[in-house]
C-alpha cells in the first residue's frame, strides 16, 4: 500500500503487527516502546525524519487505549500524573536544546548513544537485581510479593524529598510526598526524552516505584497517562514540522489498540516484582539496539 505523505510503499499488515507488539509492551509495562518501534519502522522503509514523529503519534493513540483500560482497573493516579507533567514539558524543551548544543560538536550520535546505553544498562540491572531480590525474599520470608520492595525507597532516605509542600497520593497509597520530588521525576525523564529522542517511560516507571513508592500497577497506569500528554504534545509539534505520517500512525494503531488492551489486562495476572523483573529486560534489549545503531 502506498502512503502518500511519506511517499512510502509498505505492507499495512506489517505496520499493524509492529503496532501490536509495541502496544502489548506498552500496555503491560507502561512504556511508549519508541526504542523498539523506531528501528522497526525504519526497517519497513519509513524515512528517518518521519520515524520519530510518526512513532510519537501512534504512541499517543496506543497510550490512550492502555491508559483508559488501566483507569478502569483503578491503576491511574491522575494527581501524580498531572504534577509530573509540570516537570516533563520544560524537561523535554531543555533536553532538546541540550541536544542542539551537543549536535554542534559533530559527535551527537556517539554522545547521545553512549549516554542512552549507560542509563539503560543501569536501569535494567538495578530493576532486575531488585526484583530478583524481592522474589527471593518472598520465597524465604513467605511474604506476598506485592508487599515487598527489595530496596529502601529514596524518599525515605533523603530529607530532600520532604521539602514542602507535601501532598497525599490517595490512589497510589502514598501518605506524604513532596510535590518537588514528583516534578523532579517529570523534569528528569522529560530531559532524557528531549535529549535522547525517546518517550522516557523506561526511566519513569522505576523512578515512580523506587523514589516515590508507587505500587507497580499504579506506576504503569500513571506512566501511560503521562505518555498520552507528552506524546500528544510531541505529535503536534512534529506534525507542524512535517515529520508525521498520520496514515502510518493510524495503521499502526489498529494493531497497537488490541495489543495495549491485552497488555493492560495482562498486568492483573502478575505481581509487581514479576512485572519489574520482566521490565528489566527491556532497557537491556534497547541498549543492545542502540549499540548496534551507533556501530559497535
Amino acid at each position, binding site marked *: *500500500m502506498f*502512503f*502518500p*505523505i511519506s511517499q512510502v510503499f509498505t505492507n499495512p499488515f506489517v505496520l*499493524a503487527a509492529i503496532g501490536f507488539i509495541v502496544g502489548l509492551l506498552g500496555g503491560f509495562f507502561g512504556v511508549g516502546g519508541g526504542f523498539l518501534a523506531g528501528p522497526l519502522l525504519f526497517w519497513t522503509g519509513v524515512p528517518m525524519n518521519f520515524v520519530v514523529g510518526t512513532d510519537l*503519534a501512534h504512541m*499517543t*493513540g496506543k*497510550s*490512550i*487505549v492502555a491508559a*483508559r*483500560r488501566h483507569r*478502569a*482497573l*483503578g*491503576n491511574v493516579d491522575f494527581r501524580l500524573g498531572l504534577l509530573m507533567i509540570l516537570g516533563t514539558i520544560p524537561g523535554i524543551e531543555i533536553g532538546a536544546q541540550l541536544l542542539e548544543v551537543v549536535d554542534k560538536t559533530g559527535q551527537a550520535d556517539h554522545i547521545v548513544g553512549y549516554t542512552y546505553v549507560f542509563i539503560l544498562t543501569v536501569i535494567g540491572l538495578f530493576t532486575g537485581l531488585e526484583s530478583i531480590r524481592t522474589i527471593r525474599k518472598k520465597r524465604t520470608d513467605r511474604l*506476598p510479593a*506485592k*508487599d*515487598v*520492595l*527489595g*530496596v529502601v*525507597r529514596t524518599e525515605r532516605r533523603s530529607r530532600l524529598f520532604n521539602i514542602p509542600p507535601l501532598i497525599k497520593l490517595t*490512589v*497510589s*497509597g502514598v501518605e506524604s510526598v513532596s510535590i518537588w520530588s514528583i516534578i523532579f521525576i517529570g523534569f528528569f525523564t522529560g530531559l532524557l526524552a528531549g535529549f535522547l529522542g525517546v518517550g522516557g517511560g523506561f526511566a519513569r516507571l522505576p523512578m515512580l*516505584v523506587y523514589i516515590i*513508592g508507587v*505500587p*507497580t*500497577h499504579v506506576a504503569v497506569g500513571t506512566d501511560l497517562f503521562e505518555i498520552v500528554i507528552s506524546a*500528544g504534545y510531541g*505529535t*503536534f509539534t512534529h*506534525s*507542524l*514540522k*512535517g515529520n*508525521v505520517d*498520520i*496514515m502510518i*500512525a*493510524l*495503521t499502526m*494503531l*489498529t494493531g497497537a*489498540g*488490541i495489543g495495549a*488492551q*491485552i497488555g493492560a*489486562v495482562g*498486568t*492483573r*495476572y*502478575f*505481581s*509487581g*516484582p514479576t512485572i519489574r523483573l520482566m521490565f528489566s529486560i527491556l532497557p537491556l534489549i534497547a541498549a543492545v539496539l542502540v549499540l548496534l545503531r551507533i556501530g559497535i
Partner: protein
Amino acid sequence: MSDSSPSPPKQDPSLQPLLRSILLEIAIYVPIVATYFWLILRFAGDKLASLYQDSLTLYAIAATLAIVIQGVLLEVLTSWLLRRFGLRH
C-alpha cells in the same frame, strides 16, 4: 517496604481465561482492521496528503485529533466487544 497500598487488582493464577479472551479478541479484530484499511485509509489518504501539502498547521490539528479519536474509539469498541461476548477483562 510497601508496594501494596492500595491493594493492586486481584490476580488470577489461571491464564486460561486471558488467553481465550486474547484469541477471541484477535478473531474479532482482524476483519475490523481489514475493513478499516479498505474504507478509511483508501478514502481519507488523499485528503490528508493534500492537507499536508497545503497547510501544516491544519494538518497538525487534524493529525492530533485523528489519533486521539481513533484511540478512544478503539478502546470503546474493544471494551464493548469484550462485554458483548461476556469475556473476562
